[in-house]
């Protein structure tokens, strides 16, 4: 007659049934020897009762992750268990507070949306137009980040509310939720920062890591980044299509037809709503509402682009190779998530408006825990990181954006070795190669490729510095992001010319 939930007595320690030599497997740590007991008894205690501590200057033989040469496999697994203890603590505490929080955010989002739309219908009065754009932008940002992104991670699935079901939620952006769930929840969160596997490294259109081989296409890196920032929702919508296959001649129209149809359906509905129906309701003021809705969408695009790019691409974030993660344990997965992410520092409202993705590290460690808890979890995570000698990346948004912009510009121009690697490689159009070889020869004659590369980097630094100054001058965080990217675009052309 009624569903039942059965929870075994929490006081009874879980008894593992496998032999003690079984390693911590990715999917069944509860069967790992002693894990259950450790979790329940003293999660942070090592065998001698003291918290696990690792000397950061130690060097182990054959470290499983080359980014942390002082950590052995055992250390990684011990760290993983500590993370699982933090997770378990918060899972046990899920309840009314989480439900109240997300419902309040949803209420605020609806109010902002309804209020913003009404204000924009009356947008012929300039202050109302501005207020409408602000409210609608905020509504879309909340809908996409704190609500959409987090709900689709299943953070609120435990509430059993069909409206907050991660598998069926749909959001107010061009990307169909189903494709997002694949490209983001699976591809990105499982293979975070593994170059060649995590397609969020450059989204298939940018060069965001030294480990991605350079090719002439990437000279446009800053231009692509600027366009992506402005049109981010469409970039996200096309993400799961793996459009880079077009460049490499691997594109299969037949296989992609259903996805394209789904994207077109969603894009059309979104565009009809924002660029046709709501403007039409305003009658003669159609263009005013249209401009307001378009502005709100662009503001949302720039903001989400900035937050997301600052999650994985600022200086200090590590990338990984397919080889070193081949036999990864859950402990290794945790450490990779930590090293591959970077937090943003800021106040409470900043965190709410970034969907708590400003706690990117905690989000990657605990993707299915309600995001508003990340602030509290970060204290425990930081403490553990100190003991294990692990870097915990964090910085304010303007500075992080500056380092991202600098990276986008720097990676657009090859170093001498990268240019040689491209010329020696099999891939690439012979005509383009000839051009590159010519430019490379001129650069060599003009004082060596090293010099040229250094020069280009210098220009890039200058441009990014200006962008940083603009952001700090109070021009607004979002405009700063666009400025940095746009500034970068300008210098790339300059850099290419200099080479």
């Amino acid at each position: 007659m009624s569903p039942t939930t059965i929870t075994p007595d929490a006081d009874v320690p879980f008894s593992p049934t496998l032999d003690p030599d079984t390693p911590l497997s990715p999917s069944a740590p509860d069967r790992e020897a002693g894990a259950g007991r450790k979790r329940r008894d003293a999660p942070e205690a090592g065998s001698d009762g003291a918290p696990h501590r690792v000397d950061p200057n130690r060097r182990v033989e054959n470290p499983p992750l080359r980014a942390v040469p002082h950590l052995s496999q055992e250390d990684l697994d011990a760290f993983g268990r500590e993370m699982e203890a933090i997770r378990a603590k918060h899972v046990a505490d899920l309840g009314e507070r989480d439900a109240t929080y997300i419902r309040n955010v949803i209420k605020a989002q609806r109010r902002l949306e309804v209020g913003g739309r009404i204000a924009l219908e009356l947008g012929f009065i300039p202050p109302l137009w501005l207020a409408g754009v602000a409210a609608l932008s905020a509504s879309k940002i909340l809908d996409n980040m704190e609500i959409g992104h987090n709900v689709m991670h299943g953070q609120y699935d435990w509430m059993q509310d069909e409206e907050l079901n991660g598998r069926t939620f749909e959001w107010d952006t061009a990307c169909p939720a189903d494709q997002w769930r694949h490209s983001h929840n699976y591809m990105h969160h499982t293979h975070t920062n593994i170059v060649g596997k995590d397609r969020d490294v450059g989204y298939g259109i940018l060069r965001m890591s030294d480990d991605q081989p350079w090719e002439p296409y990437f000279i446009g890196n800053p231009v692509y980044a600027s366009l992506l920032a402005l049109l981010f929702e469409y970039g996200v919508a096309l993400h799961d299509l793996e459009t880079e296959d077009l460049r490499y001649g691997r594109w299969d129209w037949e296989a992609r037809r259903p996805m394209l149809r789904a994207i077109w359906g969603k894009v059309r509905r979104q565009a009809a709503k924002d660029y046709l129906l709501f403007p039409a309701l305003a009658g003669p003021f159609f263009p005013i509402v249209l401009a307001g809705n378009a502005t709100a969408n662009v503001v949302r695009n720039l903001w989400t682009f900035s937050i997301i790019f600052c999650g994985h691409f600022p200086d200090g974030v590590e990338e990984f190779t397919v080889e070193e993660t081949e036999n990864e344990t859950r402990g290794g997965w945790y450490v990779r998530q930590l090293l591959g992410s970077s937090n943003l520092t800021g106040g409470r409202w900043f965190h709410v408006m970034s969907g708590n993705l400003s706690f990117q590290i905690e989000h990657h460690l605990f993707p299915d825990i309600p995001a508003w808890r990340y602030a509290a979890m970060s204290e425990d995570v930081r403490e553990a990181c100190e003991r294990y000698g692990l870097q915990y990346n964090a910085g304010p948004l303007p500075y992080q954006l500056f380092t991202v912009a600098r990276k986008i510009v720097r990676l657009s121009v090859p170093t001498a070795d990268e240019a040689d690697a491209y010329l020696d490689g099999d891939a690439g159009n012979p005509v383009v190669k000839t051009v590159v070889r010519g430019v490379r020869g001129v650069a060599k004659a003009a004082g060596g490729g090293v010099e040229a590369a250094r020069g280009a980097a210098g220009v890039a630094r200058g441009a990014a510095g200006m962008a940083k100054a603009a952001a700090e001058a109070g021009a607004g965080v979002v405009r700063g992001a666009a400025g940095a990217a746009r500034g970068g675009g300008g210098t790339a052309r300059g850099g290419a010319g200099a080479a």
Partner: protein
Amino acid sequence: MTATAPPAPAPTGARPDEDGHEPTGAASSRRRGIARRLLGTQLADALAGPHDVDHYLELLRPDWAVRRVRGEIVDVRHQTDDSVTLTLRPTVTWPGFRAGQHVEIHVDVDGVRHRRCYSPSGSADVRTRTIELTIRRHPEGVVSRHLKAHARPGMFVGLSMPRGEDFVLPDERPDRIVLISGGSGITPVLSMLRTLTDQGHDGPIAFLHYARSADDLLYADDLAAIAAAHPNVELLPVYTRGGSATGAGVADATARDPAADDAGTAGDRTATTPACDLHGRFGDDHLRRVLPEDRDAAAFVCGPAALVDAVREAWADVGLQTPLRYEHFAPPELPPVDPDDLGTVTFAGSDLTVDADGTTLLQQAEAAGLQPVSGCRMGICLTCKCRLEHGVVRDTLTGDVHGAPGEEIRICVSAPVGDVTVDL
């Protein structure tokens, strides 16, 4: 419950004629009708997309809805110490129900939405536009205890469409109606009784009800009033404890709260609701009393398994031709769980059953030759989520054993405990 057919989607504006009965006057109700019709259009959907209109409507008027069904609690009564009676005013999306059907209500307790089935006890006549539910508090019941303690007028609960097609009053009414219930099984049967009297049924109606004592008898006053107003209704309350000499009876099957056993002495209430001259369990004498002749009659029984089984046996023994419809009201069973118990795994969508081998459901499905969608295989991406239809599973990340019918589980980190059925 006997049948749980999936509810059909609510037709928009299912009963617009209802608006005419609103006390606020014809003009305003017509305006409201127009507003509701506008909100049900494709244009409204396009403007609200990707969310639905109700998502926004809820903000303005929680008692309005275009598709969802909700009910506002308008009255809370505490008939006994261990029950609460709620009167709900449903949104216009509620299509009405047939006497004997049940409805799922959705209640949030500590952030978690719980779903429970209850049978409305009010009249199903179209003139009654409320839903009355009586909920017996179970000592471990999450929802029943929450509602007993916290239900207040003004609160909203989610509602499903009415369910159940078997245990309902037939449209063609036979002359003699026999209603038998035990404990809280009174609710659908009372709904039948009220519907019959509201709709002017003039044949004899026998209502045989088993309660532990007069204090435990729900709806004592309502029953007395119905009997007083309708001479064709014969009330036959049987007390299996306290007032009656015969001791334990069938209603004991519902006795889950030991404290309640001592609560009742029949003395106080016998003045208003005297026990009838029948005693003890349902048997031959009870049967002869409520069904003296076996023609143009129909019988309905609802209650604990012991009562339903006794009635069905009596029917079979005597070889009665009278149609008998029945519904079990059984408390949820809570068997002890051994997380290492290996049973069988049934993949319902593929019509395949295999012996559990201790690995995750995903691994077992693949070993069985199925190709379920999956992603990370470590419990983070939710790609592999599917519906658990029966049984419980162990979370291989935490060791916790959980599972409720209809719950969505990540099969890559769920190992079966005992017999399990998943929708794969």
